Structures are given as C-alpha cells and as structure tokens.
C-alpha cells in the first residue's frame, strides 16, 4: 500500500466533489432559497482538503491492486462525509449521524431517508440529494476516470473495484474511453428521461430530480409520497421503463446505440432479468386483482413496485406492506437478486444469482455423474472457476454481513423484521424495507447505532463487499 499515492488520488476525487458541490448554487440562486452560501462553504471545504492532498502529495507512482481497493473504499467514505456537509451546515438535517446517513444513502443510490418531511428541504438541497445519487449511480470514480487523465494503468483497478458485477466488460481498448462511453450513455438516457417526465405532470425541477435518481436506481424523491405523489399513468410507466433500463447492463445500452440489437437476445443475463421481472409482475398482478378497481391499475402498480424493488431503486406508488404476505415474500426475493451486472442497480446481481443456481445444478450433476465434466457458461461463454469461487464467497459474505448487521441492530433495539429487511435493503442499495421501514415510512426513528450500521452496509453493498473488506486484512497493509 502506497499511502502517499492513495491520499493524492483521494485529493483528486475530493476536488471533483468540490466541483459537484457548486452545481446546487445555481439552483439556490434561481429559486432564491438562501442555501447558496451553504454549498459554497461545503465546496470550499472539500476543495481545500482535496487540493491540499492532491497538490501537497504529488507522486509519479502507478496505482496498483492495493491502492485501487484503498482509493475506492476511502473515496466512497469521503464522499459520504463531505456530501453530508450541506445538510449539517444549513441545519436542514441537524444531527451529524442523520446527515451522514442521508448522504451515504444518496451516493450509494440506496434511497433510504431519515427525513419525515422531504418537501421541507430547500429546492437546492433537494437537487443535491438527487445529484448525489446520480453521481453514485454510474460511479464517481468511473466519472473521474473519464474526465481526468491522471489514472494511467491503475485505472483498470479502480474501474473493477467500482463497477458492479462479477466481471466487467471492456468496450474499448483504453479503459478511460470505456468509462467515458458508459457516462455518455448514462447522460443520454437521463436527459431523455427528464424530457419525458417534464412532458407529463411533473414540473421541470421535479422531472430533473427524478430523472437523476431514476437512472441511478437511487429512489430519492422530492415528494413525501415518493412517486405516489404523482398519479398519472404516464409518469408511472415512464419511470417504470427507465428503472428497468437503469437495471440493465450499460454495455448493452451502448451496443444497442451502436445498432447491435442481437446482443440483447444473446445476453443470457438479460433474458433472465426480463424473465424474473415479468414473472414477478404476472404473479403479483394476479394476487392483487381483488384489491384494485381495474386489472390495469393493479398491473400498473405491480409493475412499478416490482421493477422499483428488483432494480433496487426503491420508489413507491403503493404500500406493498398492505399486500398479501406471499407477495411480500416475492418482493423480499427480488431485493436479494437485484439488477444486472454493470448496471446502476444493486443487489447480488442477476448474473451472480444465475451462476449460483447453475453451480447448484452442477453439484447435482456431479452426484449423478461422478466422472462428468461440465463447464459453467453464461451467454454460451465459459465462466472461469475463479469467478464461481468469488461468487460463492460473495454470497456467503453477503448473508453473513446481513446477519451480523441484523444482530447488531437488534442489540440496539431494532425489531428483527425491520432489522433484517433494512440490512438486506441497505446491502442491496434499495431503500425501503419491511416492518417499520416500509415504503411509506422512513428511517428517522431508528437508533444511532442502527443508522451507522446501515450506512456502513450501504457502502459495503455498493462496492460489493470485497473491495471494502480487504482493508480489514492485516496482510493488505503489509508490503
């Protein structure tokens, strides 16, 4: 581990965060909400610390494996801390722990909130909340990679550590170009969504905020009733569609833009992703028919909720805690699976679950054919055994972490259903859970320890466990 280099790059990351913190100033001035000073102050703080690290610790060293893990992990923690500054400085979220929770929940695109009344925030603060999700969605380090030329060969380490999924696609020979392409696709889709929403019943500001948080599969809304605050089917369906797109691998979007339509059907993960969502929608719609006035309305709300949960967005237009228990169990399953690898969605990712299921099938095959040889494949391509091993490790760690977090929260006085669902929700970066943190409730009432545990789980989940957990091994720090 090279601390000087790590701090130097972290400084660079903070500088880009300082720039991001300037954006809400424009909104503050437009709306005249008086928060401009807050953001200027926050931006200068991030800028000073970042600048000191970046310019004070110049180095020509290359980023290696360990630096990559450290930079990404500490980078995300730093974003959480500095991103909380506006909430604290403005006093709109008075306690530091709550501000940190909100900030981390934003950057990790979780979308869980401790705010009982979101609409009381100033417009520029609402925008900042949405912006943190948008930046965290595609990955702020991937963004830095795309903009700054500073991350030479080591860029791949950072890319790998931040982009979700068991394996990453490299679309271009140079990793910087791949990062740039992904952000371009992300930007284009977001822009399209904002326009489509503004055409509907949302005003342009609401459309912008929801555009940012939908494409990030984040789930922060500007209304206390989440997307339920708007009733038109147009708004619901547009958001449903774009949540689904955001949960799709962005490499696929890029290939589609390039006119390679066959890549969609060729991707086994995409087929399963579509299959899971469609099956869940059909089954749950059937269960809910008696509860709604028209089948179409049941279909609309089911589709919205299913896609919102399975892509880990966390928007709500209906309270699924009022739905039958069986439906809630299905929703719990969707939380675990999540979106596609390489998307902005969270969860274990469809690719991992698919490979785990295949691996289980492989074990049964080995019992029947002790001498049989079978290669696990995804989209017809052989999957390296190392990948399977790491997925098994990931699965084990995921459940172990969820259990540990639930236990600690229980000690803090959180009931089991709330704790377990909140832990899974945080690890999968979804937002709402069950129990007292359902889609119509918030996290404000939870204990300080519980909030910190959940914030920690969000970072672990966003960076897919390993990246952060390696820091806890002593051998990581030794040369």
């Amino acid at each position, binding site marked *: 581990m090279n601390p000087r280099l790590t701090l130097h790059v972290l400084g660079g990351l903070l500088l880009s965060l300082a720039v991001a913190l300037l954006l809400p100033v424009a909104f503050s001035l437009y709306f005249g909400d008086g928060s401009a000073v807050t953001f200027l102050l926050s931006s200068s703080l991030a800028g000073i610390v970042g600048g000191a690290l970046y310019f004070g610790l110049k180095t020509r060293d290359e980023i290696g494996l360990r630096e990559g893990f450290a930079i990404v992990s500490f980078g995300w923690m730093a974003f959480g801390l500095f991103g909380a500054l506006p909430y604290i400085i403005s006093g709109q979220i008075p306690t530091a722990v709550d501000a940190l929770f909100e900030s981390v929940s934003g950057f990790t695109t979780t979308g869980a909130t401790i705010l009982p009344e979101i609409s009381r925030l100033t417009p520029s603060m609402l925008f900042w909340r949405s912006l943190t999700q948008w930046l965290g969605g595609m990955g702020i380090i991937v963004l830095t990679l795309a903009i700054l030329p500073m991350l030479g060969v080591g860029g791949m380490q950072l890319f790998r550590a931040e982009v979700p999924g068991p394996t990453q696609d490299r679309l271009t020979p140079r990793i910087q170009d791949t990062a740039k392409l992904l952000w371009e696709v992300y930007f284009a889709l977001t822009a399209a969504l904002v326009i489509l929403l503004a055409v509907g019943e949302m005003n342009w500001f609401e459309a912008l905020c929801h555009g940012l948080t939908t494409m990030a599969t984040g789930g922060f809304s500007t209304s206390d009733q989440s997307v339920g605050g708007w009733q038109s089917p147009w708004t619901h369906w547009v958001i449903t569609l774009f949540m689904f797109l955001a949960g799709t691998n962005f490499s696929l979007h890029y290939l589609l833009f390039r006119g390679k339509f066959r890549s969609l059907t060729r991707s086994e993960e995409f087929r399963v992703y579509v299959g899971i969502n469609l099956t869940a929608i059909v089954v749950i719609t059937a269960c809910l028919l008696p509860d709604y006035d028209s089948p179409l309305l049941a279909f609309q709300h089911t589709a919205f909720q299913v896609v919102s949960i399975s892509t880990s967005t966390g928007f709500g237009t209906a309270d699924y805690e009022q739905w039958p228990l069986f439906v809630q169990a299905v929703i719990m399953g969707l939380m675990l699976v999540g979106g596609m690898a390489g998307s902005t969605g969270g969860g274990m990712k469809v690719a991992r679950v698919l490979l785990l299921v295949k691996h289980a099938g492989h074990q049964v095959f080995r019992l029947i*054919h*002790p*001498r*049989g*040889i*079978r*290669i696990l*494949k995804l989209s017809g391509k*052989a999957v390296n055994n190392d990948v399977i091993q790491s997925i098994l490790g990931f699965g084990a760690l995921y459940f172990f972490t969820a259990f540990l977090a639930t236990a600690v929260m229980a000690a803090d006085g959180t009931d089991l259903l709330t704790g377990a669902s909140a832990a899974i929700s945080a690890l999968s970066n979804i937002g709402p859970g069950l129990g007292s943190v359902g889609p119509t409730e918030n996290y404000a009432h939870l204990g300080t320890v519980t909030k910190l545990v959940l914030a920690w789980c969000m970072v672990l989940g966003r960076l897919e466990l390993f990246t952060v957990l390696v820091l806890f091994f002593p051998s990581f720090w030794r040369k």
Partner: protein
Amino acid sequence: MKVIIVGAGQVGFNTADRLSREGHDVVLIESDGSVQEMLADRVNALVLHGNGANEEVLEEAGIRDADLFIAVTDKDEVNLVACIVANEYNVHRKIARVKSGHFIEAGGRFSASKLGIDLVINPESVVADEIVNIVSHTGATDVGEFADGRVVFLGYPITAGSELADVSMRDLGALRGIYKLVVTAIARADQTLIPRGDDVIQVGDIVYFVCHKKDLPAIQYLFGFAKDEARDIFILGAGDVGTRLARRLSAGGYKVKVIDRNPKNTEALAREMDNVLVLQTDGTDVETLRNEGIEKAGAFIAVTQDDQANILCGILAKRYGAHRAIALVDHQEFVALAPNLGIDACISPRMATASAILQHVRRGDVLSMAMVEQCNAEVLEFNVSDSAPIAGKTLGALKVPVGSNIGAIVRGEQVIIPGGDDMICTDDHVIVFALPDAIAMVEDFFAAK
C-alpha cells in the same frame, strides 16, 4: 501420370503405394532422413529427402512436368506453402491435407480455391464422416453411397443364428423375394471372394452387397441386420476425431457420452458442447461405464491415438453390453485382426484419407468410390460413355475382369439391381466392386477407349 507426394507419413506412404501399384510415376518427398531411407525399399517410388516447400527439392522431384501434387505432411503450413509453390509451377491438380480447416474454409479471405488447391483433405474429418456413416447404418461394417445416395453398398457381419448363415447364393434368390440385392463379395478370414452360385455364406463372414436404398429397410429386416436402434453412443477419446464425432452425432439426435482421461480434452469439449455428457476417466473404468449405462449403448466408438487401447476398450465395452464396438485402428495388421476379436467395424485414418485422395485422382469416368477396409477392395461408380466397348451388351455376354462384379446399374431415375439379362447402355452409371488386383483392369474395362 506423374505424381509428387510431399510427406511420407502414413497417409503419404499409403497413397504413394497405391498409386504406384496402379502404374503411376510417384515421387515422395520426406524431410526426415531416416524415414526416407527406410521407405526407399518399401515402395516402388522415388523417395527424396528434403523440404517439400523448397523449390530446389521440388525441381529435383520434377515438378515442371508433374500432373498431380499431393501435400500430406503433418504440418498445415508446409502443405499450404507447398501447394502454393506447386501452383506457381502450373501443376494441374493440387491436394493439401489441412487439419485446422477454419482458416481455409470456402468463402473465407484465404480460401483453398484462391490458393489454387483443388482438394483440401482433413483426415480427422474424413474418419469422422465414415464413422457417422457406419453408426447411422446399424450393424454395418462398411458403408458407401452411390448415384446421389440412391444406391447403397453395405457390409454386414454374419453371426451365429443369422438368417443368411449356411445359405448359398442360389438359395438367396428365393429368400430375398421381391427385394433385389447383389452380393458383390464375401470376406472370409483373410481372403475376399467374389461369390458364385454355389458359394455358401458362413458364420463369421462379412457379406458385402449393393441394393436400392429404398429397399434397404426391408432387406435389413428380412435378414435380421437391423436390431433395435439404440440412440445412446459412447465415444472414447475427446481428441480431434472424437470431438467431430460428438458434434455430428449429437446434431443427428444421438445421446452422446464422451470419455477421455485428459482434463484438457474433456474441458475443451465441455466448453464447446452442452448436449454431450463429458466424462473424465479411462476407457477401462468399468464402474463409470456401467453407471452411465453402457449396457444400453447402441455403439461404443473408440477413437484414441492408441490402436491397442481402442480395440481392447471396444471389446471391454461389448463385454458389458454395448451393442457394437467401432474402433479407430491405424495399423494395417490390426485392421484384419479386429473383427475376429469382436470389433464390429474398424476405421483406419490413413486408408480413409488415401481413399479420399484416390477418389479425386481417378480418371474422369469414375464418379465416386468407396473403399472396403478389410480387404483394400474398392467400389467404383463409372459413367458409361458412348465410346466405351461395354455399351450395348448384356451382362451375361460381358466378361467382367476376375475379382470384380457389377452391383447396380443406374439409368436416369431408374436403379437396376442386375441379373444376367440386363443390358448396359450409354450414359448408364455402373457400380462395380473390385478387389485390389483387379482395380486397374476394371478401370480399363469400363472406361472409354
């Protein structure tokens, strides 16, 4: 005809031997000095030492007036370059052996026809073709198709209790009823005979006959050749041949199980194919064989590099219930031996390859041919041109060369399984069985003068 053959490996040697026996001038070029010395005495051909892609060596071999150039070394690149050089010398026909066919496929940027190569031979694919042919004709040891597949030539072993055992040729006429077939040859122990009316079929013989394809199911049923067709197939050896077989047979609807002890091979196969069961073990692992259902297997096909292993594992598999054993056998000596041991069909890569090359070398009147592995005999399909002396004669009046007989006459859409009264007309296709010594005579006899 003047022939240059580059590479005196098994294929090259075999081809050279057969061509020189048929009276062609053959020059063999071999890069391995010791092999060159050894072969000089064994084949009636000029054997040169050198690189077959080298101009000097080729000049010495007389490439300027060569009619046919055959490059069959182990190395694809040498064969291709040699053929390109031969093309520069305007050799009329060029044949190359190419193992990794994908980069020379038709339509590619680097296709064989662009390089002026008339025929690309891949021994592994030739062998696989032949085995697939045999597997799809249950029980047959040899299979050949003629006249666009309308006429088939088949060899069946006669087992104890067979309908045909102890039946004379004369009695066969009554037995076969309305279904016409011509028994062209009977292989008995080490000899092959062209049967006459008094000859009797014995247990242990292999009977070769020609018939119309549409009559085949009836004939197979009548003589008990076609048993219940089992769709389970075991393949021992996941090398090049085994992989090709697995690919073709599973595409043909068979349930294929491939055994190989080399993890590299099994992994490569498992990587490529999902609908094939790949087993990593020895061919002698009886427990696994039984566990995977060897007793219900329609065929056990052994295609490892090792002749002995192929034969022994084939016998073992039959002992545990496999219906048929088919073995890849390279050594000529074993090919004759294998049937006695209970191997139902032997495929020799060099024979198969040589056969494919010879088929191409034959004069224009020969439309297609098949080789019979057990006895080196050939089945040839001739076109009767109007200048041929045989045109317009009845079979009874025709003195076909000793060691040959006529299996079928194809006249337009009509297929005639002939008796003595049938006549040969211009533009007929005749399908003729010929023992090795008779091949040259048969060619002269049926060809245009």
